[in-house]
């Protein structure tokens, strides 16, 4: 990938994915400033190694992998003083008060925050970003079964904490005003 027009189109594609990179970074490291630093570092690395990106493959997966690897390596160098709890604040803070059902979302964010880091990551990749299990496994450098198991454990734990798996509870069955059916999969 070289030449001015390719560079311009890559620049556009990168710009479009910045929100996703920020959201993913924040679910990894929690602190907004650190997350933004991480995104900037990712953009620089991606730009410099753009020749190694296979055209036609998944740019977002490639970028997420770079971001994730950068995060882990920075953390090891203790540049980021990150504890397991640090993914937690971001999602809570991002829930705005005005929207309908926001109490549900705040509860959800709090519950999400208590999950182990690798479960949060797996759930974000598969559940929020919609990556295939296989892609998430590649990105995390682990077996597909490991990702499936992390996602499942995360869901079970969340359901337990939020009481949504108690199907005998009429509240959990599908209360009006609270959309219950998603593109379940």
């Amino acid at each position: 990938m070289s030449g001015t027009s390719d560079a311009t189109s890559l620049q556009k594609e990168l710009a479009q994915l910045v929100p996703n990179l920020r959201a993913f970074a924040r679910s990894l490291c929690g602190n907004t400033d650190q997350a933004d630093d991480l995104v900037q570092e990712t953009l620089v690395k991606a730009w410099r190694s753009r020749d190694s990106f296979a055209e036609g493959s998944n740019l977002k997966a490639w970028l997420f992998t770079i971001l994730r690897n950068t995060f882990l390596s920075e953390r090891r160098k203790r540049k980021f003083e990150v504890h397991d709890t640090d993914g937690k604040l971001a999602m809570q803070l991002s829930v705005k008060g005005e929207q309908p059902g926001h109490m549900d979302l705040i509860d959800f964010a709090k519950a999400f925050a208590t999950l182990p880091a690798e479960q949060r990551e797996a759930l974000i990749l598969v559940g929020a970003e919609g990556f295939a299990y296989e892609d998430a496994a590649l990105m995390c450098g682990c077996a597909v079964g490991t990702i499936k198991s992390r996602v499942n454990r995360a869901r079970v734990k969340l359901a337990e904490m939020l009481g949504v798996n108690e199907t005998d509870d009429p509240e959990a069955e599908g209360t009006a005003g609270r959309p219950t059916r998603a593109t379940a999969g």
Partner: protein
Amino acid sequence: MHDEGEGIAADSSVGRRKLMHRKDEKDVEAGAAKTGLKEDSHVLLPREAQGRIGQHLRRVYGEILSEPLPDKFSQLLDSLAKTERSE
């Protein structure tokens, strides 16, 4: 599927360190996953509950996605592209 492995390998020097670092955990989990999807699956959620969890997750995540972007990102991309042109 096809090309993704190759693309992802770009940052592989970092990736290898990560893999080594995470080996123990990975082995344990991979082992558990092989035999143990069953173990997990006995607590598989009903679709209804899965759907609701997914929906909450996407709404919270969507909040972050829709935050206004600071200029620094487009500025960074501009300056990277400029460097390219002057090379």
